[in-house]
């Protein structure tokens, strides 16, 4: 199976608002894909549908051949924008939580990354800063040996120094068999690690190319092209 994710005419309407409008995409394994668009363009809606957190209004979507459900949740590792960790837990409790529920969770890898960022596994999440919590979440998500990583704004709340570490972590921790989808509007920071880009606007895909194609055809960086396409 070449493509990890395929969707056809995928739509999601909230009342009269079309958050996603007939999106047709296929995402091959082994790629890092930037899902780019301004606020409200449908990035999070798309990712939530992939995670089975939202039910599409129309169209079909398959991840690893399955419709979103328990089977896809086993192979999809998702980093939401929200802080979803229980405040009363210790970092080590959360590690065991992940180990318990995900067969592909590599706890050694997680401990190793925590050490590198000097996060003590015995601290309670309550006492960690917002940025540190985000790092813990990213470590948890990237310590799974998943087939599809869905990262919603992974670098939004952390400082530039930590951004580099996070991007490095992402590149280092996905296998050739897996794909990574990163949604963001901080393009210049992540451009260097992307293979492909998808531009979303008002729920529709307006561009889907490899980064090399973008550079060759327009002679611009992805960031510059984004600014041009989405000029207000």
């Amino acid at each position, binding site marked *: 199976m070449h493509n990890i994710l395929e969707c056809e005419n995928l739509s999601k309407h909230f009342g009269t608002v079309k958050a996603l409008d007939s999106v047709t995409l296929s995402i091959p394994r082994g790629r890092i894909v930037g899902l780019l668009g301004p606020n409200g363009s449908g990035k999070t809606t798309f990712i939530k549908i992939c995670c*089975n957190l939202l039910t599409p209004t129309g169209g079909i979507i398959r991840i690893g051949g399955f419709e979103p459900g328990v*089977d896809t949740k086993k192979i999809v590792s998702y980093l*939401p924008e929200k*802080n*979803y*960790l229980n405040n009363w837990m210790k970092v080590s409790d959360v590690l065991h939580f992940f180990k318990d529920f995900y067969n592909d969770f590599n706890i050694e890898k997680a401990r190793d990354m925590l050490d590198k960022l000097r996060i003590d596994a015995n601290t309670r999440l309550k006492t960690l800063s917002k940025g540190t919590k985000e790092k813990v979440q990213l470590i948890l998500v990237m310590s799974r040996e998943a087939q599809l990583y869905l990262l919603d704004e992974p670098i939004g709340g952390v400082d530039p120094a930590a951004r580099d570490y996070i991007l490095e972590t992402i590149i280092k921790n996905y296998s050739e068999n897996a794909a990574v989808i990163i949604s963001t509007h901080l393009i210049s920071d992540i451009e260097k690690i992307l293979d492909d880009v998808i531009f979303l606007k008002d729920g529709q895909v307006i561009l889907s190319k490899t980064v090399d194609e973008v550079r060759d055809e327009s002679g611009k960086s992805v960031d510059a092209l984004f600014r041009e396409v989405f000029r207000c």
Partner: protein
Amino acid sequence: MLGKLMKYEIKATARWFLPLYGTMLIIAVINRFTLFSPYIEYRYMYAEPSVSLPGNSFFSVIRGIMSALMMFIYIMMFVGLFVATLIVTIQRYYRNLLGDEGYLMFTLPVKSWQHILSKLLISMLWHFLSSIAAICSILVLIPGEATAKIPDVFKRITELIGIHGIIILVLAIVSGLVFSILKIYTAVSLGHLFNKHRLLLSFVMYLGIEAVSQFIFMLLTIIAAETVFKPWKGISLFMLNADQFNCLFGIMAILTALLSAGLFILTGYLLNRKLNLE
């Protein structure tokens, strides 16, 4: 997976209940010593006239105030225990599944019904343990001679309605508990369909569910009264014989179980198809 969910549900809730039960029992023990009532005083005076009690002395007044104060704290704890059990039931469902933590819970490779069932079973466990803690605190509080009569009471009830009657009664209580918890889950899930004022609307939904289920119960009661219970006309609840009593509670248990199954399916559908986390 259900077992793992339940394990974490217990971990997340035990830190509220265990200290609460401990405090409750300590306060009951304190009350055991401070408990003082004019009635007991009076009885002692007549039973053993030789025992001299400090009548209206300063100590007696202080003791009276202490006793009343401790009793007040105990009653507050008693009520508080059940209020806390209810609040934790609501809060675990609302926050852990439909709040930000829902992003974690609903991306676990687990079916929605397993989430509901794990929350339901653990909430039932705490309702049960809270009742046990409350009963224990009463046993600590009341004089030993009264406690000694409790087995007799059970024996009498068993004689009256039989062992199968006890089982039916327990089943009726359990399905009543399941029903009352599922009403909350359904109401919160329905309230969550809206984009604003979700808690307020959950409450409105609860009132709606309550009204609808009351209506169904009333309708079925009327139907039952005209059919199954027709020959019993004019008999009050206390005059029922054991078989009639068991039949009544058996039907109640089945009815609540059926309505509960309906709510369980509805809640599962809402979480599966209509989930919309903030």
